[in-house]
């Protein structure tokens, strides 16, 4: 951990995981939606469901969805700000399979009608992970440009993607590969230091054996 992960963050209490992390999840959901949210159904799981109210997790998630950061003094009153902003929300307790104990699933609708379901977890110290976007497993922080490619499990796909990144002078920060079975469906999740050009993303979509390409670039840490 770096110096400012030991000292910091500057945050509204009481818990870095249940409050600061929850604000970040709300804010990241808003960034991923890329619209002002107008309605959300927030499903709390595990420790979030059990101790969330006492830790202000509910108010923290709403604060983040309203665009507040973890040190915003308005967090405790976020429900009132939501009402003023015309943002409607409700909470429910949900069950998830094999999820981190501090997890939440947010179904959100934006002002221009876009809908998105985000499943995320708070890992401690305010750090978060986005686990699912709609029906795609992503398991990344989404703080760096992130490319998620679903493809058939055949030789050559990783090479296509990494060659494309290399040609664009994009450096890979993290990369992981999964597959459901040999020769089945595979997923690669790649976090990069630089953004990836739009036309290269479109080029990937048309490659044979590539099933789906998702690109996330919300621009920087939150």
């Amino acid at each position: 951990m770096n110096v400012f992960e030991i000292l910091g963050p500057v945050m509204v209490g009481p818990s870095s995981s249940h409050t600061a992390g929850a604000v970040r999840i709300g804010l990241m959901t808003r960034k991923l939606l890329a619209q002002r949210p107008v309605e959300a159904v927030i499903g709390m799981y595990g420790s979030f469901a059990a101790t969330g109210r006492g830790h202000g997790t509910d108010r923290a998630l709403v604060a983040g969805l309203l665009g507040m950061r973890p040190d915003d003094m308005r967090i405790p009153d976020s429900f009132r700000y939501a009402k003023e902003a015309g943002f409607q929300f409700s909470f429910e307790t949900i069950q998830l399979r094999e999820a981190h104990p501090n997890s939440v699933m947010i179904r959100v609708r934006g002002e221009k009608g876009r809908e998105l379901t985000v499943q995320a977890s708070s890992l401690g110290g305010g750090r978060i992970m986005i686990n699912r976007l709609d029906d795609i497993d992503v398991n990344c922080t989404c703080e760096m440009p992130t490319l998620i490619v679903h493809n058939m499990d055949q030789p050559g796909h990783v090479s296509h993607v990494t060659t494309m990144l290399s040609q664009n002078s994009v450096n890979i920060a993290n990369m992981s590969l999964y597959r459901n079975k040999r020769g089945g469906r595979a997923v690669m999740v790649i976090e990069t230091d630089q953004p990836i050009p739009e036309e290269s993303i479109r080029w990937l979509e048309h490659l044979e054996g590539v099933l789906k390409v998702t690109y996330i670039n919300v621009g920087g840490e939150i």
Partner: protein
Amino acid sequence: MAFESLEMILQTCREKNLPFWEAVLLDDMNERNTTREESVEQMRELWHAMKEAARCYDGEIRSHSGFVGGAGKQMEEYVKDGKALSGPFVGKVIAGALQMGESNACMKRIVAAPTAGACGVLPAVLVPYEQERKIPEQKILEALYTAAGIGQVIALRASIAGASGGCQAEIGTASAMAAGAMIHLRGGTGEQIIHGAAMSLKNLLGLVCDPVAGLVEIPCVKRNVAGAVIALSSADMALAGIKSRISPDQVIDAMKEVGDLMDVRLKETGRGGLAGTREGQEMAETLN
């Protein structure tokens, strides 16, 4: 972070003829690829946020559960009346630790150091000391780098999360960091810094994380006092020339082992210890 042990920080200090804090600063510049000015400026903002958090304490507010609030004000008034057994300075440290812990529980803005639950320890010793002794800000920033370096090594070798290491990992680490910071402010050596940190940690070894209803309130607020006062006594021992008979890095390793052996009911699950008492359970039930 390049340092795997406190001894390694001291070794770097000896090789490059640096004070402890500067070895930590140089490592941060290298690690995050920033300039000296950027790093120091960020530390300055953090220090200002810490002081602001101490200043904004409100003795009238209570936490959402209603379990905590007001103790910091009571303590401050008691110290002002000149009644404190431990004297006016330590009295202020106790009040400051309670106040920051309560501010955190009441959803005020604080600085996690190293965690939100332990956010009262470091400012409790630094804020009154700076005020009373008129310490230049640069010295305080150096003390904060010293504290951060200690925290980094503990995070790497053991843990700073109550859920994995118990309260010793949170308040124990905060106390070790605060001891190191104070030793720097009193002109102590690198050797004294790491031995003071080790003695703090040793005094809090085995402390479990047993919060009532899983909230960062009971006993977290008052444990900030333990961390702050033990930091002072450990710093004084180190400055007197007393050493930890077990080397500081091995003390950290012992903390990790104790955390691993600790029952899960005593690691932030709200089940064992104080959380598991009849009263603790009854309090938890009032929230549902």
